[in-house]
């Protein structure tokens, strides 16, 4: 055991390798940081958060949080974050429903329906999301007629000025109605929001459909056979026997899709919707605070990802344990 030179000792070599890599990374990071500090101080932009309290000077078109130009940058970013969260929540529900339907349609007895589900998935997954968002906004939603010509059924009206949905207001059920000032309804979504939502739901829905299809396909054939030998039929087998088992495969896949949905929502500016990213971009253009703005952005999306992961992990535990 003695007499081994240290540079050939297999107990030492791993540590040498680690020390080498660690040192290299450290040197590069230190070099970058030195440059950063030098360049920032030369530009007079050393890290500071005071600008967050200054008045923003720009308006946001559509916010949950009341906002106007005299309010601070901090509040603007917060309003953007809330808008992002609103998109994510709506799109998450919508794309899950769509994905579940299309994923189950892949197992329909009806050949036409199966084919259609396949075509939808292949079509949507192979065209960039950004292109689809632009299409929905500029070609579909901005081309909607307005006023009396607006498309609509009693409970839902599609107009160039937005989506009008029936709902409860002043304690009674109200349908959208055309007044002199334009359409009025208890629930009103802007076309920007509607286009973004439509684009995200159709896009992520296709991916979720694949996750669902894969999950159902992972349930052994014997389960279908056993269930039909007990006299159950198509939809009942799917709902009571197959889906509960498929969930164990589906939920982890869903987590990935939800996180990618959260990230995809940052393309909202393609539809002219003011989400966190577009507020941040405007803020950067006005203040020049690149590093701080980027830190805010990264932290916000990281927090959203972690939130989704945590929630889905909880759900995952629920579905996984049920078997035993």
């Amino acid at each position, binding site marked *: 055991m003695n007499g081994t030179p240290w540079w050939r000792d297999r107990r030492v070599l791993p540590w040498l390798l680690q020390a080498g890599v660690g040192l290299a990374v450290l040197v590069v990071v230190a070099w970058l940081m030195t440059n950063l500090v030098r360049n920032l101080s030369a530009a007079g932009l050393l890290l500071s958060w005071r600008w967050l309290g200054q008045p923003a000077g720009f308006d946001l078109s559509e916010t949950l949080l009341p906002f106007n130009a005299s309010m601070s940058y901090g509040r603007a970013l917060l309003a953007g974050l809330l808008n992002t969260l609103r998109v994510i929540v709506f799109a998450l529900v919508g794309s899950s429903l769509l994905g579940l339907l299309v994923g189950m349609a892949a197992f329909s007895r009806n050949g036409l329906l199966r084919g259609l589900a396949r075509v939808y998935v292949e079509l949507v997954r192979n065209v960039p999301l*950004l292109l689809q968002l632009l299409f929905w906004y500029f070609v579909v939603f901005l081309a909607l007629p307005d006023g009396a010509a607006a498309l609509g059924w009693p409970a839902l009206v599609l107009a160039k000025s937005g989506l009008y949905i029936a709902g409860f207001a002043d304690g009674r059920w109200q349908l959208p109605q055309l007044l002199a000032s334009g359409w009025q309804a208890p629930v009103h979504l802007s076309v920007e929001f509607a286009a973004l939502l439509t684009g995200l739901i159709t896009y992520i829905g296709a991916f979720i459909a694949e996750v669902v299809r894969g999950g159902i396909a992972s349930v052994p054939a014997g389960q279908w056979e056993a269930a039909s030998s007990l006299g159950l039929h198509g939809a009942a087998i799917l709902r009571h026997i197959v889906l509960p088992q498929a969930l164990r495969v589906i939920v982890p896949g869903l987590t990935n899709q939800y996180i990618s949905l959260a990230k995809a929502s*940052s*393309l909202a500016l393609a539809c002219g919707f003011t989400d966190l990213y577009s507020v941040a971009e405007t803020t950067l253009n006005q203040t020049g605070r690149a*590093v701080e703005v980027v830190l805010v952005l990264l932290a916000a999306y990281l927090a959203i990802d972690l939130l989704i992961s945590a929630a889905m992990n909880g759900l995952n535990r629920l579905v996984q344990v049920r078997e035993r």
Partner: protein
Amino acid sequence: MRKRSAPSPIAFAAAAASPLKRLQRQLAPSAADALLSLGLVALILWAALQLLGWAMGRADWAVVQLNSMLLLVGRYPLAEQWRLWLLALLLALQAGLSWGLLRAWPRADRREQARLWPRHDRIAGLLLALLALLLPFALHLAGPLQWRWWLLAAVLLAGRWAAGRWGQQLPRRALKLVAVLWPLLYLLGFWLIGGGLGLAAVSPGDWGGLLLTLLMASFAMALSFPLGVLLALGRRSSLPLLRWGSVAYIEFIRGAPLITLLFVGQNILGFLLPGGASPDRIWRAAWVLTLFAAAYLAEAVRSGLAAVPPGQLEAARSLGLSQPQSMVLVVIPQALRVALPAMVGQFIALLQDTTLLSLIGLLDLLGTARGIMANPEFLGHSSELYLVLAVLYWGCCASLGLGSRALERRLDPRSVASRR
């Protein structure tokens, strides 16, 4: 043991029957299904008629015809465009030759006859020829463009035919030559596009359209691949520092939307490097794309590495191969084979992600198209452009997917060690 997958219920009804009967089983196994099918057929017909009516009638394809070169290559100088055509010609030839050689040399272990035109190839060749013949007419391309397009298709098919016909007279090693030629052609392509070394330089700022999109995507794919493999190895390493470093990098990149990273690249990279050392906007974006894709690729490769049983490494080591030799020759080839579908999925996503470059002001295919749409001359004709773009992107992505499935078929699934 592979589980049997769920039977699609048609399996029960698959017994031979008259075509009419089969159609009935497919479309109307029950009264409710018949009604549904009827509704769907009506819907599809209506949509198809609407689309056809629009494409033939209201659509004005002048916007595509007038801007076809802009969409393809951006503001690449007219006088130098012969270089691009030359490159396209070489690519078509190489593609045809590779395709033919693969057919001339089926895998040695399979008792397959080398056939000049197997059924799939006949269909693919026919479709290609048809597409090449008709597309210029459909788009009313200008004369010179038309015959160049035909030349490309002809060269590809001729290469395919010649290599399939005479490939077997070359030694088997010729197959490896094909694999070496692709990277060489890629480097040659960069020289032809960018110039230098005797060719007039064309600055990256003048690259645009589909050319820029494909360049960015292929550059990021080529470089993110080795990076991704290294990161995946790091993540599975037993050395804590390497493992945690890789995990931190991968999770950080995967946690952030690409647009924010591109934003970092455009606004902060300049601060991180010594003054004036920051590369051109286009290269900055290319590097961000590469570093971004590497993290996702690493996850795909990691799943592949996990599928290789530890006994493989032990066997290689006990034969006296060193650790790097064992990894490169035994473990990584198997891991990549398992990871292939996931990796191609990432490459497709990467190709789609290049559209985000248009949001930071680069003139990729989408960026160029949006520039055209903003031109008052073409106001109100964005639908035509969107359709053409969708078809182009769809074609690129779908052919990547097709290629990957063909490769998977050639690489036998049995050629990966199974876990017991």
